[in-house]
């Protein structure tokens, strides 16, 4: 792994080390935001550890941007405090918070060249010329835009503009980097590349705390150490990325993070055995699934991801249900099937299919491993 900006000079290495140590935690302490009588953020308590990437995801209007702008200082919390590191920033103006911010449409200053855009923050803070020159070079190199310093923003593609916007935010050595849907204005291919670039950026600058707001679950799953899922101005769930994906704590999380089949089941036996699987009934089928403290008689949901369902079973796939085949969509690498299981549509993404594909309308068995499932409570609301 090479860090173009930080090789070859001791001064720069010191800088790099400083960034590594410079990350601060961000702490929301019962922060609420209201526009008039309309509460858009209900008291929110959340901590982002130093050097962590927290992805805040959720449907449009769920309050993600509001939470980010509260950190940046553009919306005033109606109640609660926000701390960055040891500083309570709730009453600080934005320009005293020491953050970097990147917005969806880049907002590069159109009347400045790329280098002046990147230098903007340092100049505004009155840094000396030599330092500015060095930092501009470093920051542009970090995002791979060294060759474009003299261009104007309109001479760059969307992806290039977004890199410059990131370089501009990095140049001030922010304690926290705030990214609000930074990739949603880009098209799919460039977006995938940029996600990887940001992941690499964070490997290079591991101390940098990042709050990453997005509505795209792929970006969140790829980048984030932790994910907070927002819904109607509240955190619906919050936890380490893999954990949230594998053991979603509620229906909303299961459905929002990846695709999920949620089968209504009745628990017959609480967690038992070395792996802590519970037993639950779906119609006549008795299934085992990863438990979360259910008691016999509880009605709950069994979550199984489409890629974990198989038309062929082996000794690992001890769960078995049957369904009527409704639709088959062959997509080359993957085949998507839709089955009806006791009135619930069940999606299957299969990489391998039996040699002879069953007819539409025929009854087909589906196999899955208890370890791939989890029992998910139905949401309180909705």
């Amino acid at each position, binding site marked *: 792994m090479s860090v173009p900006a930080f090789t070859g000079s001791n001064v720069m290495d010191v800088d790099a080390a400083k960034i590594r140590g*410079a990350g*601060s*935690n961000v702490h929301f302490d019962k922060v609420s935001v209201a526009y008039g009588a309309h509460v858009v953020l209900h008291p929110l308590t959340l901590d982002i550890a*130093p050097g962590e990437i927290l992805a805040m995801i959720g449907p449009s209007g769920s309050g993600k941007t509001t939470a980010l702008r509260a950190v940046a200082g553009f919306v005033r919390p109606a109640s609660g*405090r926000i*701390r960055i*590191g*040891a*500083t*309570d920033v*709730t*009453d*600080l*103006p934005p320009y005293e918070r020491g953050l970097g911010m990147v917005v969806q449409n880049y907002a590069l200053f159109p009347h400045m060249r790329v280098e002046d855009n990147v230098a903007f923050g340092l100049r505004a803070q009155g840094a000396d010329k030599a330092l500015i020159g060095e930092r501009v070079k470093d920051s542009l190199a970090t995002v791979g835009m060294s060759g474009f310093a003299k261009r104007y923003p309109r001479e760059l593609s969307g992806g290039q503009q977004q890199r410059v916007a990131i370089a501009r935010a990095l140049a001030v050595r922010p*304690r926290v980097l705030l990214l609000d849907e930074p990739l949603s204005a880009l098209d799919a291919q460039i977006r995938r590349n940029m996600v990887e670039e940001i992941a690499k950026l964070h490997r290079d600058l591991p101390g940098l705390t990042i709050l990453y707001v997005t509505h795209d679950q792929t970006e969140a799953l790829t980048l984030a150490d932790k994910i907070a899922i927002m819904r109607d101005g509240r955190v619906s769930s919050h936890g380490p990325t893999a954990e949230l994906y594998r053991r979603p704590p509620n229906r909303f999380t299961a459905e929002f993070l990846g695709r999920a089949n949620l089968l209504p089941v009745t628990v017959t036996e609480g967690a038992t055995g070395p792996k802590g699987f519970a037993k639950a009934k779906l119609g006549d089928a008795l299934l085992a699934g990863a438990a979360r403290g259910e008691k016999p008689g509880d009605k709950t949901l069994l979550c199984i991801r489409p890629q974990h369902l198989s038309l062929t079973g082996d000794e690992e796939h001890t769960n078995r249900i049957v369904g009527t085949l409704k639709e088959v969509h062959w997509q080359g690498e993957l085949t998507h099937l839709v089955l009806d299981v006791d009135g619930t549509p069940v999606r299957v993404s299969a990489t391998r299919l039996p040699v002879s594909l069953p007819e539409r309308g025929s009854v087909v068995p589906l196999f899955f491993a208890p370890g791939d499932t989890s029992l998910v409570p139905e949401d309180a609301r909705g």
Partner: protein
Amino acid sequence: MADAAVLPAPIAKKVPGRFWIVPPAALLALLFFYPLVLIVQQAFMDDSGMANVGEFVRVLHARFFLNALINTITISVAATAGCLIVGLVLGLILAFVPFPGSGVIARLIDTFIALPTFLVTLAFTFLYGSAGMLNAGLMEAFSLQAPPVNFLYSTWGVVLAEVTVYSPFVLRPLLAAFSLVDRGQIEAASVLGARPFRIVRQVILPAAVPALIAGGSLCLLLTVNEFGIVLFIGAKGVITLPLLIYSKAIQESAYQVACIIAVINIALSLGLFGLYRFAAGRLGA
């Protein structure tokens, strides 16, 4: 930076920004609103400084005032109607039956907004005046003794001049509205056999109504306030409220009468301004 000790919250700073509005507001208050108040005060006070509406009532019933009021309203309504028709015809052609160079022409018409209004009146004297091109031509052609065309020194001369000057104010929002009309919709309608007149009525006009209302109410306001055109035509019979204010104040030094007329004229203008703001607000402008 250690995260252990949480610093006490800084005292919330009061934004001093609220007071930045004072200098420009004070300037305008001194040069505009203070004189406005004095006009109103003069209108309702006699020389001894006592409140007195007698003079106000007298002016209100005076022949010269009523004539001017009727003239002002007639001219304003007629000119606005003319502006709407001319603006609509020009706008429809510019937007939907464009010809080479129509963009340049549209911008040329737009620059008329920046030109002084009396220019047109002056030009009209050369064109339609008693010794103007039209009369001279007609007299030569038909060996007439007296100029046959005389409308310039009447209400209609003022109306025509105001139509010229103010139709760009209708055309501008109209072209903006037309540029938002979906061309595909028009093409689909014509493919289905709809006649142009029907398309104009059913597709284009509904989209243009807000712009027509906004442009029309702006025209009403501007024509009520128009001074240069009426002054330059200088016809004895065509006196409007602004001209009356001028002649009472400057030629007769009758300041109180001038203030009374000004109060009424301003009230009328502000009413139309309210109408315009309402219309423009609904347009989303």
